């Protein structure tokens, strides 16, 4: 009696297992490929390529330019900590205002520049007018591989492109190799400093400018060429589809006549073999 009851319960459990409970954790799953629509405009290979030996050279030049700023910052900090008797203020490097450090200040300057040259969206405020009238941020250094997640740095190619003055005078985007962030942070005396921007009129940096102009290509974003040339025609890009490899549960069909016919044949074959 009790046995037959047990059997009945098991049967019930088996029939329930199909409809998604904890018991069907070990249910069979098959691999499926789900199509996912990607951005038709290429995003990954927009960064201009930098040769490793050129990169080392650039870093050397850059550190030389940043060193006085780091020293000045350190002196300022010391001055704040010490008593007021020492009132001699250290003199800032001549190009102190032409160097931008950090994500927010760099991106803000580039956005202001973009709104000035494109005159598209919001009218420039007073502060923007004064700040962007004189200097042109032309060189942006990003330690792309030291900054994660990638969404932080992914906007730089388009941003530098849109903030360029003209197609001939574009903002240069330079990616620096892995491990450069620690070097920059050390020299500047700040933590996690991975993004630096320079304007185009620092006399001390002319060799660096020449090196970048000769070795690093302009950034090019074909699908945004319309901002420089109104008559530009864009070609329609192909369908960019990815396939995600995922799995889906195998659920037997209800009222599947073919399956019902096949199932009784299977156990008989097994018994014959044994």
């Amino acid at each position: 009696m009790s046995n037959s009851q047990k059997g009945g319960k098991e049967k019930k459990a088996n029939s329930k297992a199909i409809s998604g409970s904890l018991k069907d954790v070990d249910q069979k799953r098959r691999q499926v490929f789900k199509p996912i629509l990607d951005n038709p405009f290429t995003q990954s290979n927009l960064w201009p390529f930098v040769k490793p030996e050129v990169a080392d050279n650039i870093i050397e030049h850059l550190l030389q330019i940043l060193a006085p700023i780091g020293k000045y910052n350190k002196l300022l900090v010391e001055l704040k900590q010490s008593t007021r008797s020492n009132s001699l203020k250290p003199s800032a490097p001549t190009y102190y205002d032409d160097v931008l450090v950090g994500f927010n200040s760099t991106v803000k300057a580039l956005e202001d520049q973009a709104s000035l040259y494109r005159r598209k969206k919001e009218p420039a405020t007073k502060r923007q007018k004064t700040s962007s009238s004189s200097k042109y941020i032309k060189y942006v250094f990003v330690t792309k591989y030291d900054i994660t997640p990638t969404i932080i740095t992914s906007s730089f190619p388009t941003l530098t492109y849109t903030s360029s003055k003209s197609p001939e005078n574009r903002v240069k985007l330079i990616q620096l190799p892995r491990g450069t962030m620690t070097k920059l942070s050390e020299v500047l005396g700040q933590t996690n400093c991975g993004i630096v921007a320079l304007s185009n009129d620092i006399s001390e940096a002319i060799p660096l400018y020449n090196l970048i102009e000769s070795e690093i290509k302009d950034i090019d974003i074909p699908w945004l060429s319309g901002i420089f040339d109104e008559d530009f025609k864009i070609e329609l890009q192909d369908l960019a589809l990815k396939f995600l490899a995922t799995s889906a549960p195998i659920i037997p069909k209800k009222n599947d006549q073919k399956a019902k016919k096949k199932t009784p044949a299977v156990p008989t074959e097994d018994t014959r073999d044994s």
Partner: protein
Amino acid sequence: MAPKKPNQQKKAPKVIPHKDNYARVTYLYQAANLFSASPKYEVLSRGLARTLDLVSKKTVLKLSPELKRTLCKKCNSVLIPGLSVSIYIENLSKSKAPHNDSLIHKCLKCHEIKRFPVGKNRAYVVFAERDDVRSDAK
């Protein structure tokens, strides 16, 4: 019995179900992008992007996060850094702990804000770009 390799990949299917819908969505996206460049057709651009969104929802298409992040969820304008979106990192915590950093995309048209808590998990990779995922183009 040798255990099956987890990375053993089958061939991606040749036939794409509902390919026409995917084609329509990419076309709409590219059109919206083209018109967003000139202020004259800005409304048209947003209209196209709205149709894109509606089509993808109605036909249940999977769009990659990379594509969806370039459209404003509120006003459907195409977000291009420098032109229609402002980007900054914000840390609202008093202690300014680095794990509270969040990246903010602010639409300049409708001032809608999209927050990405980048400090929470620095090693985060979007699901569509992880290594175990195939990336066959058609």
